[in-house]
């Protein structure tokens, strides 16, 4: 059985996805707390995911969803490593501020 297409056109989903992606990017660019930067990265990835799924829906084939699922896993692993790093940094009694981490420069 073929359910009729319902709800808004996927263009709208894409708009949301793009907005989300750019919001995440903005977060990475303006926040100094590494935690929030990580969160922003998550948002970017989710924006991409939404786009993938929307397109997947558009082409009526599962590849996009698969992609999205793997992205979730990857995002999770990035988070793990990121948090591990943050913890290690915190252990060094450094305050959590990416701007303070600028001993390497020039």
């Amino acid at each position, binding site marked *: 059985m073929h359910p009729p297409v319902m709800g808004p056109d996927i263009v709208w989903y894409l708009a949301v996805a793009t907005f989300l992606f750019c919001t995440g990017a903005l977060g990475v660019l303006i926040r100094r707390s*590494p935690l929030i930067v990580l969160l922003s990265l998550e948002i*970017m990835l989710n*924006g*991409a995911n939404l*786009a993938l799924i929307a*397109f997947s829906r558009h082409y009526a084939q599962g590849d996009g969803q698969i992609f999205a699922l793997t*992205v979730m896993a990857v995002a999770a692993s990035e988070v793990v490593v990121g948090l591990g790093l943050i913890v*290690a940094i915190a252990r060094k009694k450094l305050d959590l501020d990416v701007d303070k981490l600028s*001993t390497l420069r*020039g």
Partner: protein
Amino acid sequence: MILGVVTPPIDWFALAAPLALLATGGVCLLAAVLVPKGDRRVVAAFVCAAGFVGAIAAAAALYAQSSAGHGVIADAIQRDRLGAFASVIVAGSGLLAVGVSYRERMADDHVAEYYALLAWAGAGMAFLTTASTLLTLFLGLEWFSISLYILCAIDRELVGSLEAGLKYLIVGGFGSAMLLFGSALVYGATGRLEFHEIAQVVQQQHLSHDALLVAGLALVIGGLGFKASAAPFHMWTPDVYEGAPTPVTAFMSAATKTVALVLTLRVLVTAFPQEARLWTYTLAAIACASLAVGNLAALVQTNVKRMLAYSSISHAGFMLIAIAANSALGARALLFYLIPYSAMSIGSFAVVAARERELNRPVTLDNLAGFGWERPLLGISMVVFMLGFAGLPLTGGFVGKFYVFAAAYDRGWTWLVIVGVAATAVSLYYYLGVIRAMYMRSSEELQLAPVAGGSPARELSLQTAVAGCLAVTVGAFFAVQPLIDAARHAARSLSF
């Protein structure tokens, strides 16, 4: 047969190299728990080296066996000589990196994990070189990137190391997010993930002017350029290279660049042949930017690792010229260039590591003084590497540059040749500067005794690695014919 699902036939041979390295990593990890602390370092290092040797063998065999490239495992990856060729370089770099790592002063309690991660990073790269869908591309990228994030930060006593790790993670995550979004757009434009199919769809449906497609292409190029540390996506490179443990830097500088560039070549040529007009010029521009930024910034560096980082940026520029040529000659040039480049890069970082271990402090041009006279082998090797970077004869670097320029000229881009020539001229200043620092200070300026005291450790493994790099660098000059033939066959697996 599960739920009536027919799993695709699996060509284990095509996966041999990554699998070997994966296994190696696993064994190392076991060693971390099973082997007593005292022997852990040697066992893990040995296993890891063995794994890389195995990977080289596997990749070589694969190269021999896959003269006709074809997709395997549901076309998720491509079994061809291009991948095999790159895998050989990657595995070779890994092997050398093991030699360099052996005596690195790092937290003893994670030495085995270190080698495990090294092997896994290598595995990811070896896998990535064969990736032939946007999905496997993204996954492979993350695979080795995550391993590298950890490797960079593995020396947790050093603030620099942690900082490098976090920076790499954040910027890397950002970059791969861009790549991901780009892939999404491409997928949206074509509805395909597999490179060949993308090209086909674009051709059949005349999408070559499709906005979504080109936007996606732009983002994909950005993501790949980031991994290849080409300007303007390069800015993480100096910091990470400087902060990371030197052996890791050595491995990254050689292997990451190899993979990123080979993949760029593969993606652009297989998936976007119709957009060649766009990406060739873009890559040319990026190449010029990299040459300019890398060389100019390197001019004023005093920290040798940082200087080498910038030089690696400029070399990314050189190799991008070859890709931008978008011709069989260009691909050949790139693949040949990668051989001496990887050797020189690892070798030079290895020498830096050796000096670091003598002095227990970051190596600067000043405290390199007299090194050449004190450690003849390392000194001469460093000289050869610097001359090779500068593209002087009797090193493979010369032949590489020659091929790159030839490709650009062949493509009709004389101006690009001129840019490259000018960049080379500028680069001489800092490459020769290193030699100057090592040999030409008057003897009273020499700091011969390591700060730690005692005579510097003569490390067999590191010196072997350096000697290996030396052999490859010089050998690539004399034995051009076989190498270039190999490169030509590898390039054949792409359709020009």
